């Protein structure tokens, strides 16, 4: 197990290297010039040239990459081309917002999805089952941004309520923080719940049809025991996989939801940076997001082994 984890962590290196090269090149290939974007239509050619030099954009590509990487390796992600702000502290502060949002959404999703998925599987083809399936399909297929906009409109027009403006951290003011977070979390949670619900249902269903379940039932075990001690445990692997992917993706920033609810998360940071062609910020954040994504999936793999003793890593 230990060597497995070490090996996986070492595998991070080539993955992150690949991501860094890719994002570095992509940012330089896409059309759009950071100097022109910053200075706008009033810029003189001299001013544009000066800015490009300040950013080191006149250097050969491999030198630019080397300069960037040697910074990254010492945890110096450089400074934003737009605002001159240091990038890494900014990423980390955004990450706390995104992390909280992900956590609350995921909890909402699981609280809804796992019990409903199990019930649907137990009562297969009943009205309850159909109900759950329709709800989950809606959850999967209804776009986030539409749900978010509808909720905002209904709250404003019917209840004269809109979430407080201006983000505050959980530790500054927990109540205001949760008031700000709860609606975006519900929006994200419901769409996550759809997929988890479907996976739980089909996965539990599959297990329930296996021979060992029949054996357990034949022993006279109570249905509660059958479901929670035997079926769910075995059904957990695919559910965990999908949860891992969802959480990994969410931690990379929920661009649209963050934008609609004005949350200063990672997604918002990357989006603004892309629009402003702030290369350094985009590169740094994408690298960070890739790191988090790989890490979450590693955690899920380790969790597998705890949940299913048959899985062992050598």
């Amino acid at each position, binding site marked *: 197990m230990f060597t497995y984890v070490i090996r996986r962590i070492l595998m991070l290196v080539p993955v992150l290297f690949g991501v860094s090269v890719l994002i570095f090149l992509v940012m330089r290939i896409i059309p759009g010039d950071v100097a022109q974007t910053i200075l706008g239509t009033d810029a003189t050619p001299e001013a544009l040239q000066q800015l490009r030099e300040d950013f080191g954009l006149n250097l050969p590509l491999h030198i630019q990459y080397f300069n960037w990487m040697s910074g990254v390796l010492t945890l110096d992600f450089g400074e934003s081309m737009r605002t001159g702000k240091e990038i890494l502290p900014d990423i980390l502060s955004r990450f706390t917002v995104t992390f909280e949002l992900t956590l*609350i959404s995921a909890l909402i999703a699981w609280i809804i999805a796992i019990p409903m998925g199990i019930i649907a599987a137990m009562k297969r083809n009943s009205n309850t089952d159909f109900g759950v399936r329709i709800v989950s399909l809606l959850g999967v297929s209804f776009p986030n941004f539409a749900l978010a906009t509808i909720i905002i409109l209904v709250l404003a027009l019917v209840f004269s309520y809109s979430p407080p403006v201006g983000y505050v951290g959980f530790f500054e003011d927990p109540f205001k923080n949760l008031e700000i977070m709860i609606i975006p979390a519900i929006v994200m949670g419901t769409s996550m719940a759809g997929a988890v619900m479907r996976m739980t249902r089909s996965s539990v269903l599959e297990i329930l049809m296996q021979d060992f379940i029949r054996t357990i039932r034949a022993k006279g075990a109570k249905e509660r025991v059958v479901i929670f001690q035997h079926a769910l445990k075995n059904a957990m692997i695919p559910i965990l996989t999908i949860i891992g992917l969802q959480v990994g993706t969410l931690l990379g920033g929920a661009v649209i939801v963050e934008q609609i609810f004005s949350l200063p998360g990672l997604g918002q940071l990357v989006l603004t940076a892309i629009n402003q062609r702030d290369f350094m910020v985009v590169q740094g954040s994408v690298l960070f997001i890739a790191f988090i994504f790989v890490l979450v999936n590693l955690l899920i793999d380790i969790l597998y082994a705890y949940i299913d*003793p048959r899985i062992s890593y050598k």
Partner: protein
Amino acid sequence: MFKKQYMYVLFIALILLLAACSNESSETEEGNDTTTETENESEESVSEETASDVEQVIKIANDQEPAGLDPHKTPAASSIRVYSKIYEGLVTFDENMEVEGQLAESWEQPDDTTYLFNLIEGVQFHNGREMTAEDVKYSFERILDEETASHIASYFAGIESIEVLGDYQVQFKLAEPDATFLSNLTHSGAVIVPQEVVEENGDLQQVAVGTGPFVFEEWVPDNSVTLTKNENYYLDGIPKLNRIEYYTMLEEASRLSAIRTGEIDMTTVNAQSAELLSGQEGVEIKDYQSLEYSYVGFNVEHEILSDVKVRQALSLATNRQEIVDIAWKGEGLVTGPIAPSMADWSIDVEAHELYSNDVDKAKELLAEAGYADGFDITITTASSYPDMVDTAQLLQQQWKEIGVNAEIQQVEWGEYIDIWSNTSADILVGRNGSGSDPDRAMNYFFHTEGSANVWNFSSDEYDTLVEEARRTIDLDARKEIYVEAQNLLLELSPNLFMVSPKNYVAVRDSVVDYVPYAHSTEDLDEVFKK
């Protein structure tokens, strides 16, 4: 067996976590309800109170995150609205677009190329140091220094020397007479900054220390910018507000909902939203004619578009009023090269032949140019601006009538800027600001050497006119030259000038004395809350 125990621990932990959280979320939902009620109550009681008891804090939703706070380096509108409260220039425009003093008490012009400014005495920067003539000299030298890479360097390229004549007197010498100099000084970037703050921080992107009515307090990225009252402001009784809080809210729907419920006091909105909000209790819509205008830019070196007859034909085939009615909901003015809100400078275009939408004449011109059957062409525009896309689509339809088949290419903003600066499109639909002086709209965009003349347009006759206008100090004579130059520009049609839109600001009715006008869209000096 060992692993099984782990499993139980994990499972129990998970259940505990779930239980804890389900409590949490139900609590917050209850919490939600109570806060809503108290907020509503407090709102009601506020409206019954007198002005003096009301907290003088205004919350403004900013539709874009500021892109830095350095007034000498950042032209983004989201930045200007913040730093223009903190910094001041020598002079400014009043609501009639007349130059009036700001940090300069008075000024005189001993000869055509010399300007002498007398500064107000006793003005302090927010760090407590007195602002003097040395700061004026430093600020303009910083703008002109190539290392600064200032976006407004081109406005002041004509300055030959700046001389400090005393603590409160500074003299600018220009290389040649320049009628635009005073109005260029009103530019939001042409403000006075303290040298020591620049040197301490490298630049002013993250800090802001000026002489203005509001003091920079804090900028939390992608969240908020807070300004507080300058208690030592040199004008009595100004400002009236204690705090300005800007919140970055990218989404129009969120801004709308927040202004409806009173979470924010002020936000800019587009024409559609303005219509939605009209009649909403507690919200007022203020509008003003902007200095901007939309245009259709031609690459005049393009094989087909290089023929002036083709460009004139396209102008004739364009129904500008229809574009006002559809793309701008009827709220906007058909414009020439200088927007109508530039008071006396702009010409009346209604009567101009090329604005008559005469399709037959257009076909005739096209035939003369050798394109009797029309041609295929691409119109490029930015997808992020719905009005530009609408305009492009309307042009596509209108031009079909004379056989011109246009394909629309929508690009993202960063790419659009790239295409604009490299003239890599045949036809570009875009938007310009008329600036503070007609010289901007005329010289800068269309002179052969103009930095923003990306159209490859060149006319000796035109160049001579705008150069002369720049040198002509006498107002009436200058106006006459611009009338001639504008007519010539319409005739040569390197761009088609389309519509100058209205801008809209939604304001809660608790905000008193807020009047937006073209040059100062968000002057909060006299504003207070009741």
